[in-house]
């Protein structure tokens, strides 16, 4: 029995090589489908299946089961949750809120002159090129919104007049 063991392993390896070779041959002789994006998994699957089955068999003989992976996932979930709680507690303090407010203020104070300068330069450049600036486009959009509001108000008045005149519901 002990003498047969290396032979059994060798036999299994040989069989796997033969199967893989056959799978390769089958795949390479196949016409590639036109205009279909390549899916490497489809290509590799028949070849890998042999190896996966061997590994599954090998792992099946050990005390390890896929349950270990589930336990690992649960551990990671708990770890993330624990960190989330710790961070939540830290961020739920007045000190954190104060620090965050101060940081935001500093960023805005520093940003304000740069933003203003950038806007002025962009506006000047667009003016030189004869193109409308962001402010001008925004002003036009605002006018459209205001016109829409006026039309709505007119519609409301017309509806009210129609109702008074004929007692008919406007459409």
């Amino acid at each position, binding site marked *: 029995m002990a003498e047969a063991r290396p032979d059994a392993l060798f036999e299994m390896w040989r069989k796997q090589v033969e199967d893989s070779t056959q799978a390769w041959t089958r795949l390479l002789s196949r016409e590639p489908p036109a205009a279909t994006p390549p899916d490497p*998994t489809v290509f590799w699957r028949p070849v890998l299946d042999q190896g996966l089955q061997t590994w599954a068999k090998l*792992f*099946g*003989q050990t005390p390890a089961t896929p349950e270990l992976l589930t336990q690992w996932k649960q551990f990671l979930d708990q770890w993330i949750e624990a960190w989330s709680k710790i961070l939540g507690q830290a*961020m739920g303090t007045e000190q954190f809120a104060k620090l965050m407010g101060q940081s935001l*203020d500093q960023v805005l104070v520093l*940003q304000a002159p740069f933003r203003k300068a950038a806007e002025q330069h962009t506006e000047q450049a667009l003016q030189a090129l004869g193109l409308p600036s962001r402010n001008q486009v925004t002003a036009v959009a605002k006018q459209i919104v205001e016109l829409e509001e006026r039309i709505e108000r007119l519609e409301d008045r017309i509806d009210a007049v129609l109702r008074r005149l004929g007692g008919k519901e406007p459409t």
Partner: protein
Amino acid sequence: MGAERLADVIERFTDDGGGPGAAASSETTKQWQEEFDRNFRRFRNLHALVTRPVEPKVGQTPREEVYKKNKSRLYRYASTRRYRTPLLFVPNLGISRPYIFDLLPGGSFIEHMTREGFDFYLLDWGVFGPEDNDLTVEHCVTKILPRMAQQVLASSGARELSVLGYCMGAPISASFVATHAEIPVKNYIDMAGPIDFSKVGLFGLWLKKEYFDVDRVVDTLGSVPADLVRAGFKLIKPTIDLSTGLNLWWNLWNDTYVESFQALNRWANEYVAFPGEFFRQWVRDFYQENKLYRGELVMGGRPVRLGTITCPVFVVGAKEDYIAPPACVRALLDVVGSRETEYAELPGGHISLIAGRGAARHCWPKVAGWLAPRS
């Protein structure tokens, strides 16, 4: 230890397999085969995600645009209408897009409600640009919502309507209902909408007047850009990306999960900016001064008194909601003048209350069940 184990493995591997542990080993082998197969599918789906990203088809429930006002749209969804009273759904303005409520077939709140027979209208506030920086909460309450409600009544042919406010849409729509007695609101539902802002959790703390200078933000930036909104929401749950990535890897073998993930991920990364003046009023009047709950809010010259809401009111809070904790949502029942009120605290967070598998089990049937006999 490792070497010993490997030796054991080879020893057992080369055995004929007739020992007492053969059945167990065969079962374990099967489990490992399944696990390897899952891993194979994980890599296949990962490859597809990276090399052939598919734009998820969201918002598939048929609908028609009933009315539009500036960027805002009113949509009516096709339904097997069984109830006379139409339902106007008012979601949040800014932050995110409303297609989360109609994410995918089989996982859509809107699809569920239309199948139940409700004449469902969605107010999509839209994506605002710099030209809308003057838009205020007051404008939404006194100009946009009344017109949308009138359009709902006109297009449905009904005499009354029900209003459902979700998240920020709840305090906004509650303000509208409280100030517009001429609009016949038959039922009102608040889903995860903060009312008492003194109990609003982390955002309430961070936006305190002493720490957060809303004037400086709006005066400097004009509007509140989407990136700043994203930063605020990411900060409130900093481990969210980590747990999302881990769960994606764990479920990557599952094609259905991947499809849902793609849709949800698209939504979760599509933040929407706030118009500047809207944000200023929202933070100052609601978060910093809690004017709505204290009855000090004035909109369009009318005082907003929630006590004037007398129709049946249903409030739904989410147990794990860290954006609108249940206590600040439930507070609506303390201030409305309705005799018929009900509160339900359901499992889930701010989003999973209304979107996802848990919502389909807990929330949607509850809301539909409360609304049906009153519609």
